[in-house]
């Protein structure tokens, strides 16, 4: 895998960390020195054979990389008969793609001589990954999580505590991911001397969007050559769910220079765009600043952040990584959304047809694949990033499908979905 070395020429001041108009560094001055220190540390690390070697060793012997790809023909029958291949980030240690970024940032933390890490988490996957890396490397760890999310992802709260992390439930605002980030930023300002903030997605102030993308880029690098090996050609579309956008940037990035490969991000449509209860930023929002970056943002006429909704905690966020905004405005990537209903339908379908329980976040990508497959037909080859596994979501799924003990499984939700001749799913 000969990868081009990163370009280290310093950028002019006001263009720092910009993707077109998006990105930047909208944070309190108190954090600037830490961001500069981080930027310097990651630039050095990315060309340091010792860092790259250690990261590669962890990927191989701890995470279980490379993650495999799996072709899913029974699922694909419901996606217009297209060929569908999953990139199995769900099989990584800790159960999602999040570990790729976390191990790299934890190594950076040690290189910067810091002893404490903090993180925000929505679904809990990033928090679990951070708690895991902290245990592995002997770092003190505090994870901020919206109170609503601690309830719907209770299993992950227990996992983090088992791993020795302190989990702080954040009751303010909407008590979800955005509020957890607010609290993590407050902690960081106060403790920046010995603390590194392991931000879990491709948003936030520069250098986070670029750095987190680079740490996830391995997903697309592996998948591109795996798909070529298996099929002898590039996919027609690469599909991923987009919360902050890290798993999507991770799998997209290696394909950006392949003009014939469509890059398709799937946002959380919640209860539908008309309902206002969703997190489909690109379907409804204008650009604005939140959490240090200028990007598409769900905001009211005053610029106050709007509350979002998704059945999946990891996609329940009002802003989106700035590079996605750039890819969208330049037309290199396209974005659509899947409603809660569609995502849950895709969730169940993958369980029943392939014996794979996906995360609810990843189920949005699967719902997108069903749609795209039906549009493109049986000649199409789709690569879908299965960003995580669904163990953490069993509680939500059990309630949704009525699988709790003593409750009857509602009619129509219990039967195996059947593909019909026209490629539509019958539930």
């Amino acid at each position, binding site marked *: 895998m000969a990868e081009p070395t990163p370009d280290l020429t310093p950028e002019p001041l006001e263009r720092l960390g910009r993707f077109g108009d998006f990105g930047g560094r909208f944070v309190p001055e*108190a*954090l*600037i020195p830490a961001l500069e220190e981080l930027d310097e540390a990651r630039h050095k690390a990315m060309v340091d054979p010792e860092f790259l070697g250690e990261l590669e060793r962890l990927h191989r012997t701890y995470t279980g990389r490379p993650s495999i790809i799996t072709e899913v023909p029974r699922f694909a029958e419901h996606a217009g008969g297209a060929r569908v291949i999953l990139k199995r980030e769900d099989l990584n240690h800790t159960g999602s793609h999040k570990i790729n970024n976390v191990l790299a940032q934890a190594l950076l933390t040690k290189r910067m001589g810091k002893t404490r890490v903090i993180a925000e988490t929505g679904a809990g996957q990033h928090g679990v990954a951070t708690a895991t890396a902290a245990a592995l490397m002997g770092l003190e760890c505090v994870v901020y999580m919206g109170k609503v999310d601690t309830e719907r992802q209770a299993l992950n709260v227990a996992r983090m505590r088992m791993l020795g992390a302190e989990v702080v439930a954040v009751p303010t605002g909407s008590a979800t991911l955005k509020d957890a980030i*607010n609290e993590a930023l407050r902690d960081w*300002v106060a403790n920046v001397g010995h603390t590194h903030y392991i931000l879990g997605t491709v948003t936030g102030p520069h250098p986070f969007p670029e750095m987190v993308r680079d740490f996830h880029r391995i997903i697309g690098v592996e998948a591109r050559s795996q798909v070529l090996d298996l099929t002898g050609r590039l996919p027609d579309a690469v599909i991923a769910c987009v919360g902050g956008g890290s798993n999507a940037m991770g799998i997209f990035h290696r394909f950006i220079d392949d003009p014939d490969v469509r890059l398709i991000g799937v946002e959380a449509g919640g209860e539908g765009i008309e309902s206002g209860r969703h997190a489909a930023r690109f379907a409804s929002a204008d650009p604005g600043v*939140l959490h240090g970056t200028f990007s598409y943002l769900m905001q009211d006429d005053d610029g*106050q952040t709007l509350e979002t909704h998704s059945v999946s905690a990891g996609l329940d966020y009002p802003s989106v990584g700035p590079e996605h905004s750039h890819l969208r405005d330049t037309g290199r990537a396209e974005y659509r959304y899947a409603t809660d209903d569609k995502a849950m339908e895709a969730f169940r379908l993958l369980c029943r047809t392939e014996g794979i329980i996906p995360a609810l976040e990843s189920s949005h990508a699967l719902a997108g694949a069903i749609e795209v497959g039906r549009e493109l037909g049986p000649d199409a080859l789709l690569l879908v990033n299965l960003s995580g596994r669904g163990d953490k979501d069993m509680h939500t799924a059990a309630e949704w499908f009525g699988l709790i003990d003593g409750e009857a499984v509602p009619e129509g939700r219990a039967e195996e979905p059947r593909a019909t001749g026209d490629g539509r799913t019958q539930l």
Partner: protein
Amino acid sequence: MTADVTTGPGVESVFARCREEGRAALVCYLPVGFPSVEGSVRAMVAMVEAGADIIEVGIPYTDPVMDGPTVAYAADQALKRGVHVRDVFTATQAVRDAGAPPLVMTYWNLVLRYGVPTFARDLKAAGGAGLITPDLIPDEAADWIGASDETGLDRVFLVAPSSTDQRLAAVTRQCRGFVYAVSHMGVTGARESLGDAAKVIVERTKAVTELPVCVGVGVSGGAQAAEIAAYADGVIVGSALVRCLTEATDEEAGLTALRSLVGELADGVRSGS
């Protein structure tokens, strides 16, 4: 274009007067909209009458990452009660009419959404002196630097104990009015003791700029104000004032507590040097 000292909208004349009187300036913060828009305006005017030299008018924001629990609570309540960004202009006009320059303290997205040049024009028309921008650094502020040059409004950026000398020089070069020195690393909130960090950051800032340097974050009473007034050009108080309103049983009690605290602080800034 710099604002004229006598007719300009900025705070320069306040510091000139304080220098003549051999004292530090008292800068008092309250968010607009708590307990109501009218109530907050009455409170701000009461602070001017009780001895505040400059009023820092906060605009409530959903995601106030620089603020501790006291200010965040008041802002959240104000938003729930329906405060709007445009209400800030009612407050600035009232404060200006009461005889003190109002500086608006706001998170950046609210101004961005309003439109930077439009916000500057409307603020100036409503008697505003300028902006304090806790999450906007000069490197990202090209639009605001342009709009404030055009209107003559002050632009107050923040420096922190973590700022390098290089950053201090770069940030203060873009400030007009004064420089806001954050006393310690952390969010807003009244504190018992400020320690040496505040003094150090003021001295380091004064080494690179001629502008007045005011200290904010954590000041709670007259004794602290006096201590800071000994080395800084101004003392900024926020959470302790907000608490007068959040802890009051009714509005009158809140205003009484507020007047008494502002009076104590005003004595403090006069006994510091």
